[in-house]
C-alpha cells in the first residue's frame, strides 16, 4: 500500500517535527531533469512533493515561478507530461500531489484527471484558484478516486470561511502565510501563526504553511506552529541560477538538507 499524505504527516509527528513539502513544476527545467531533481529533493529530506502543472496565466505566482512555468510550457509540458512526472517520481519513492490552477483540470475532464492521477500514484491535488463553492464536480471526482483535495486558507479568511474550507479539505490544509503571491521573502509573515491557530480550532487535519519560506531558519520558525512547511520558489531560484544540471542538483540537495534540518530544529 502506497503512502498517503496522512502517513507523511503522521510519520513527521511521530518524530516530533514538521513535514517538509517541496514544489517543482513538471517539465522544469526539462522533463527528465525535473524527475531527477525531485528524487534529489526526496533523498535530501523532503517528505512530499508538489508537482506543479504549468499554466499560461498563473495569477497567484510571483516572478520566479512564472519564469519556471513559462519555460516548462515552451518545452511542451502538457497535462499528460505532468501525470507522467507524477508516475515516475512515485515509482522512485516520492509521495506526490499536483498543484494546479483549475482550468487545465476542467479542460482535461474532472473525472478523467482524478482517475488518471490516482492511477499514476498521485495522492492529492492543491487547487489555488478553486474554492469549495465552485468545486462540486471536483469534490465528487476526488472522493470517487481517493485523491486528497487540498484547499487554501489565507490571513484574510474569516473564521466562517475557514470552517467552510477545512470541511471540504482532506490530506492537509494549505495555509497561505501572507497576503500575496508566491516567492521568497526575507521573513515569514507573523500573520501565519495566527492563521494556523485559527484553522487549528476548526480542524484536526494537519496544517502546512506556504508562501515565502526560503531558508532553514524560516522553516524552523514555521515548524514551531505548523505541521508542514512548503518550499517552492527557493528551490526554483537555485535551479535558475545553476550553471548546469549537476550544479542544480547539488544546490537543490543543499537547500533540501538545510530545510530538513530546519523542520527538525
Amino acid at each position, binding site marked *: 500500500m502506497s503512502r498517503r499524505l496522512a502517513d507523511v504527516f503522521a510519520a513527521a509527528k511521530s518524530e516530533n517535527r514538521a513535514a517538509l513539502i517541496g514544489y517543482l513544476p513538471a517539465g522544469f527545467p526539462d522533463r527528465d531533469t525535473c524527475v531527477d531533481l525531485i528524487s534529489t529533493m526526496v533523498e535530501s529530506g523532503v517528505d512530499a512533493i508538489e508537482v506543479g502543472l504549468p499554466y499560461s496565466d498563473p495569477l497567484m505566482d510571483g516572478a520566479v515561478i512564472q519564469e519556471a512555468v513559462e519555460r516548462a510550457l515552451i518545452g511542451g509540458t502538457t497535462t499528460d507530461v505532468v501525470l507522467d512526472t507524477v508516475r515516475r517520481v512515485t515509482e522512485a519513492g516520492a509521495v506526490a500531489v499536483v498543484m494546479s490552477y483549475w482550468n487545465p483540470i476542467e479542460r482535461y475532464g474532472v473525472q478523467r484527471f482524478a482517475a488518471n492521477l490516482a492511477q499514476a500514484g498521485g495522492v492529492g491535488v492543491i487547487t489555488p484558484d*478553486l474554492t469549495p463553492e465552485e468545486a462540486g464536480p471536483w469534490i465528487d471526482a476526488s472522493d470517487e478516486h481517493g485523491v486528497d483535495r487540498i484547499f487554501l486558507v489565507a490571513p484574510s479568511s474569516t473564521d466562517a470561511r475557514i470552517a467552510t*474550507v477545512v470541511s471540504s479539505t482532506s490530506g492537509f490544509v494549505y495555509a497561505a502565510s501572507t*497576503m500575496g503571491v508566491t516567492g521568497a521573502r526575507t521573513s515569514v509573515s507573523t500573520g501565519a501563526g495566527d492563521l494556523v491557530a485559527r484553522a487549528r480550532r476548526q480542524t484536526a487535519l494537519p496544517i502546512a504553511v506556504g508562501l515565502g519560506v526560503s531558508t532553514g531558519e524560516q522553516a524552523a520558525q514555521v515548524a514551531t506552529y505548523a505541521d508542514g512547511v512548503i518550499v517552492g520558489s527557493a528551490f526554483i531560484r537555485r535551479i535558475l541560477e545553476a550553471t548546469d544540471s549537476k550544479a542544480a542538483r547539488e544546490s537543490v540537495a543543499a537547500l533540501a538538507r538545510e530545510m530538513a534540518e530546519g523542520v527538525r530544529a
Partner: protein
Amino acid sequence: MAVMLETTSAPGHYGPYGGRFVPEALTAALDQLDREFRAAITDESFTRRLSELERTYTGRPNPLTLARRFSEHCGGATVYLKREDLNHTGSHKINNVLGQALLAERMGKTRLIAETGAGQHGVATATAAALLGLECVVYMGEEDTRRQALNVARMKLLGAEVIPVTTGSKTLKDAINEAMRDWVSTVDQTHYVLGTVTGPAPFPEVVRTFHQVIGREARAQILEAQGRLPDAIVACVGGGSNAMGLFSGFIDDPQVQLRGYEAGGSGVETGKHAARFAAGTPGVLHGARTYVMQDEWGQTVPSHSISAGLDYPGVGPEHAWLHDTGRATYTPINDDEAMEAFRVLCRTEGIIPAIETAHALAGVMRLGRELGPDSIIIVNLSGRGDKDVATAARWFGIDLGGVASDALSVEMAEGR
C-alpha cells in the same frame, strides 16, 4: 464536456458561467465589494452622487444621433449612434469607473489599480482617481503601451503610474494577471477597478450595473425619436462592457435582436483573432467560467486584433450565457472590414470612431442589409478614435509629415 450543465443560476452565476475562481486570499475582498455594492445601489446618497457626476462631469445624457448618410451604407436601415464617445475621457469606460471609484471611497480604500488594453479604461480610472484624490496604478501590456502611446501619456498627465507588463503575451490578459497579483498583496488599501464585465463575482454584475445607464438612455431616446423600439441593437464585444450596458436596456424586449461583434483579426481561419464565440470553448479565465480561447490542455491561446480593446481571449460570462440561450448573437469582424467601416463613418458622419467601435459599425453595415430599409438599428458608439489616429493613418497610408505630434512621430518612427 467538463462544464456543469446547470439550468438555474446561483448568485454570481449566469447558467453555468461566471462564479468566482480566485485565490482564497481575495474572497474576503470580493465579499466586501459585494456587500458594499448592494448597499450602495440602494443608498440614495450614493446614487444621487453618481447621477450628479454623470450629469455634471461625464456629460450625460449623451445624444442618440441619427446617422443619415452612414445609414445609406447599411442597406438603407435607419441607424442611430449612441454617443458614448462624447463622454468625458472619450468612451463608455467612465460610467463604470466613477461608480467603482465611489465604491472604493465608501470602502475606505485610498488606492485604485486597473488593467487596460486600449488605454481607455486606464485613462478613465486615472481620471476618477484624480477627481477623488486617490492614488492610481495602471497595468498595461508592453505591446499595448506602444500601440496606444497617446493614452499612456494621458494617464501620466493625470497623475497615474503606468506599469508596462512584460510577461506572457504582453497584452490585456497579462495586465489582468499583474493587477490581480498587485491586488492580492495590497487589498487592505487597494480597490481593483476591473474594467469590463469579466472577472470573479461580483465584478460582472457591478460593471454591468454602472453601464446600464447606456441602455436606459438609449431606450428612452429611441422611443422619443421613433415611437417604437429598434429591431436590433449592436455593440462590439471585447470583455463586453459597452455591449452589456446597451443590451441591458432591451434584454427583456424579445422583439429587439441583440447583436455583438467580436474581433476576427486576420480571419478566424488564420488563428490570429479574438473570436471567443467563433473559436473558443467554455473554460475558466481570470476568475470566471466563460468562453475562452484555449488549447486542448486548457492553456490560454493569445488573441490578435488590430484593436487593443478587443484583443482579449475571454469574454464576460453573461455574454456566454446570452450566447448559449440564443438571446444574443455574436459574429466575428475581421480587421479589414472594421477599418472599412471606420473609414465610412469618418466620411459620412464626420465622426472618427475607436477601432473597437468600428467592429460594431461593420456589423451594422452587414445587419442593415439583412434587416432591410424599414428596420431601425442602434449601434453603441462606444469610443472616439483619437487614440487610433496613428494606427488608422498607417492603415490607410496617410503621410503624417510635419503635422504629427511627438507621440505619433514616435509611433511612426517605430514603424507601428
